[in-house]
């Protein structure tokens, strides 16, 4: 243990570490939503999926003793919720946005109901990669502990990018998202492709939820998520439906979310609650700047209704 504190240098350091930590759920949910929206549907229910994922990951990790089993379980639950959205939305006249809101409330309610017995017990948590092994400075070491899920997500972003633009699967998904009629004419089952994309998106959102309960904050309680699932939808618009840009945007949002705790860690507590609002304000400002009243973004999948 070194006796030095980093002083004001602690703020940017804590912010970088915080950005990586806070951005991980954003990253997974936004990658999932990006995939879903590329197929031409919006799933606003990912907030509910996130909370359900967090609950089930914690529960499975507690029961089985293996946090990674919890991560997988969270993904499977998320995929099931995605399947519900995908199947119901394929019925005529069912609005995907309204259904998303409904699933959001259902997911949160179910998670609180089923998660009631999980508030007390402590489940095994996910480990971290100690990139700070070279230093003795405790602050630096804890800042350089990078969680494994972030690394997976950061690798997944370019992989998904590649898959969407360089593979046949990606082409099919994008075709369905641009023009369902064209996809149908080529012989693809539009509802099936969208169902798959929504399930995959739900899987990723569930994994994002497992991060909340198994790494940071690292316990299950009812105040775990505060709109990350919905902000991720806004983030996808900001990232203009590109998985790579989702990664950068997530880091930016994570950084905004880390300002408050970083300032607090060096003893600046004034306006703590206002700093908590920073990610939301940032999202709103970015949405305002990047939207246009007259024309939709050129990158937007044409079948999409969210950014009309």
């Amino acid at each position, binding site marked *: 243990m070194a006796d030095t504190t980093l002083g004001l240098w602690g703020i940017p350091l804590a912010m970088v570490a915080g950005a990586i930590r806070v951005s991980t759920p954003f990253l997974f949910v936004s990658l999932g939503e990006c995939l879903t929206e590329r197929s031409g549907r919006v799933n606003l229910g990912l907030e509910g999926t996130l909370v359900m994922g967090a609950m089930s990951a914690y529960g499975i990790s507690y029961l089985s003793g293996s946090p990674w089993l919890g991560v997988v379980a969270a993904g499977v639950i998320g995929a099931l919720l995605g399947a519900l959205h995908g199947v119901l939305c394929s019925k005529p006249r069912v609005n995907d946005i309204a259904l998303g809101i*409904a699933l959001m409330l259902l997911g949160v309610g179910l998670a609180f109901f089923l998660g009631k017995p999980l508030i007390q017990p402590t489940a095994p948590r996910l480990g971290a990669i100690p990139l700070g092994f070279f230093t003795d400075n405790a602050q630096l070491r804890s800042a350089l502990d990078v969680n494994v899920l972030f690394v997976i997500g950061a690798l997944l972003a370019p992989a998904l990018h590649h898959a969407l633009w360089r593979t046949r699967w990606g082409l099919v998904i994008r075709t369905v998202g641009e023009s369902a009629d064209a996809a149908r004419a080529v012989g693809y089952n539009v509802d099936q492709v969208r169902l798959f994309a929504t399930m995959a998106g739900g899987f990723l959102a569930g994994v994002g939820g497992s991060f909340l309960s198994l790494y940071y904050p690292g316990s299950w309680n009812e105040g775990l998520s505060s709109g990350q699932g919905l902000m991720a939808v806004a983030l996808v618009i900001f990232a203009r439906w590109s998985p790579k840009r989702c990664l950068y945007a997530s880091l930016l949002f994570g950084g905004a979310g880390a300002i408050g705790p970083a300032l607090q860690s060096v003893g600046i507590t004034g306006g703590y609650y206002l700093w908590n609002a920073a990610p939301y304000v940032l999202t709103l400002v970015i949405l305002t700047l990047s939207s246009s009243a007259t024309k939709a973004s050129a990158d937007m999948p044409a079948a999409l209704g969210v950014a*009309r």
Partner: protein
Amino acid sequence: MAIVAQSTEFVAADGSKGTLPPARSGPVVDWARLGPKLEAFGIPLLALGLSLILFGAFVIVAGHNPFDVYAEMYRGAFGTWFSFQNTLQRASPLMLTALCTALPARCGLIVIGGEGAFVIGGLGAAAAGVALIGAPSVVVLSGMFVAGAIFGGLWVGGAGLLRVRRGVNETISSLLLTYIGIALLNHFVEGPLRDPESLNKPSTLHIGEANMVGPIPGLDVHFGLVVGVLACIAAFVLMKRTVFGFGAAIVGGNPRAARLSGVRVGRTVVLTCALAGAAAGIAGTFEVAAVHGRANASLVAGYGYAGILVSFLARHDGLAIIPVSLFLGGIAASGGLLQRVFGLPDATVAVLQGILFVVLIASDTLYGRVRWPSPKEAS
């Protein structure tokens, strides 16, 4: 001409935009006319029934007898005079927060920021009340309601303005504004507006017992219920019986057509959103002025989110919101009893609401698919 008159009547009675019924002639029973009306009542009832079955199955899995649970819920909601008053108490904010979703829905907007307008309206009202302490209580209360309505109106009106000016999706922006509103509430009750004596639960100063809104004579329910009912009727009249409401409906149907026919689209949208926010803000004001006497974290109680469900269940119709609020208020009121009698978690009510919401939205697919005159569901 007869067809036109018939079609307008359908739109007015149904309460939501729908396809015009095909004109049919001949049979004794005019199914083309009666069918959509039956659908408007029958399909939500069907959805309700299905939800109750699904929730019953959920209750069985949780290890309880669903009939016992439903009987207990009925007792907790409407069974006794005490529980019915509890239901009324919870229904009144729901009526106002439901309007926060229902009014913009006429313009084709999905606003889910009622919670934020509720919270910020309550905070603004509490701040105004504290600032006016010492003045006659009429002045204090007027100031509080004006402040609550303005803050709530700014919140959702802002989402409407962003939509009109910058094309920002109102569903997302209104929800972001909710989180910003809650953060502002936390900031002010922990900091600038904090009553130093509120140790366990940081709150603003109390507005004074003399300034509180009393109960309706003969009831243990505050006047928010009366205001809620009146607001719902007013919303119905505004949206169904005025030029402004007609313009809003055209905007909801087709903004370009509205613009071409001379409706000032932007003004209509922003004004409707501001009214919607004001309704939720007034609900928050009642929560401060009639229930808590001060603003604190108790304002974040989910009334805004439940209002979204009420609005969708009522198909965004002002008059339908009144009974639906009573129904959902009853479900909420029975939550306490479910906890005490069955040891079910407090989220049980949220599960029922969630199931109801999902089934309801999914039931949209049934409209127009029922083959009249043989009244069988074509699901």
